């Protein structure tokens, strides 16, 4: 069994009067199927941009990042939704933003797809790892 170690750090000196600065980390046991760091040119049709296939993982540790480009070099600020494969969005990424979460839709059997909020193309980075 493999181990994935995510570490999240949040910091802010002006979000409140008390500065924020902390990290959290742990070792996650993961198993196939998984997909290492990959890129996709997401479009406005979510079904064309499935990043976690239907039924592939009961719990998928999912990383998604908006590269801020259409093709790796041309800048874009188009927003991109992270959706289940029933087209229900649960997160929206702007340029440069990322998400890391243990995706597990109630009832199982749902994958994850990306959908650009307007007719455009955005290059997205992603990876997923199945919880062991």
């Amino acid at each position, binding site marked *: 069994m*493999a*181990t*994935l*170690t*995510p*570490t*999240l*750090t*949040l*910091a*802010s000196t*002006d*979000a*409140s009067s*008390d500065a*924020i600065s*902390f990290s*959290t980390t*742990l070792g*996650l046991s*993961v198993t196939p199927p*998984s997909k*290492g*760091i990959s890129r996709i040119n997401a479009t406005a049709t979510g079904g064309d941009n499935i990043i976690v296939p239907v039924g592939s993982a009961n*719990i998928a540790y999912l*990383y998604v*990042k908006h590269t801020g480009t259409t093709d790796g070099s041309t800048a874009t600020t188009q927003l991109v*939704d*992270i959706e*289940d494969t029933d087209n*229900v*969005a*649960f*997160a*929206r*990424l*702007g340029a*440069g*933003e*990322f*998400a*890391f*979460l*243990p*995706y*597990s*839709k*109630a009832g199982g059997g749902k994958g994850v797809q990306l959908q650009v909020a307007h007719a455009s193309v955005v290059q997205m980075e992603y*990876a997923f*790892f199945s*919880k062991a």
Partner: protein
Amino acid sequence: MASLTATLTLSSTTVSSDALSFSVTDTANVVAPIENVARIIAATSGGDSADNTAKIILPNIDANRYVYIKHLGLNSAGGDSGADQVKIETADGTQIMLLSKDEFAFFPYYDGNASLLQIQASANTVQVEYAYFTRS
């Protein structure tokens, strides 16, 4: 306007033949409402959700919010929470994520409309840490 800097590092020497080791950082402009790091008890009843089973951690507004949630591995009495998990749900009780002991999530929550986020234990009680920041 305030800023929030989030950094995620993923590493593994065993998840594939090619070792995984990278970091991403994003600095975002944030505005009120902001809820700094808070702790709450997730249970299966006695909540403030529509069916009283869950605790609402994000108010029902039309905005994109950066959300941090962590399962602390403790029950309400401070003991080990064991295998009890934390369900992250939308307003209608639909589970979208599931946190096990010590796991965390960080994501910009938005479903395109005014929406809230609530949490519920899979059984018994679980201490949960969370924070949110509204995108400007």
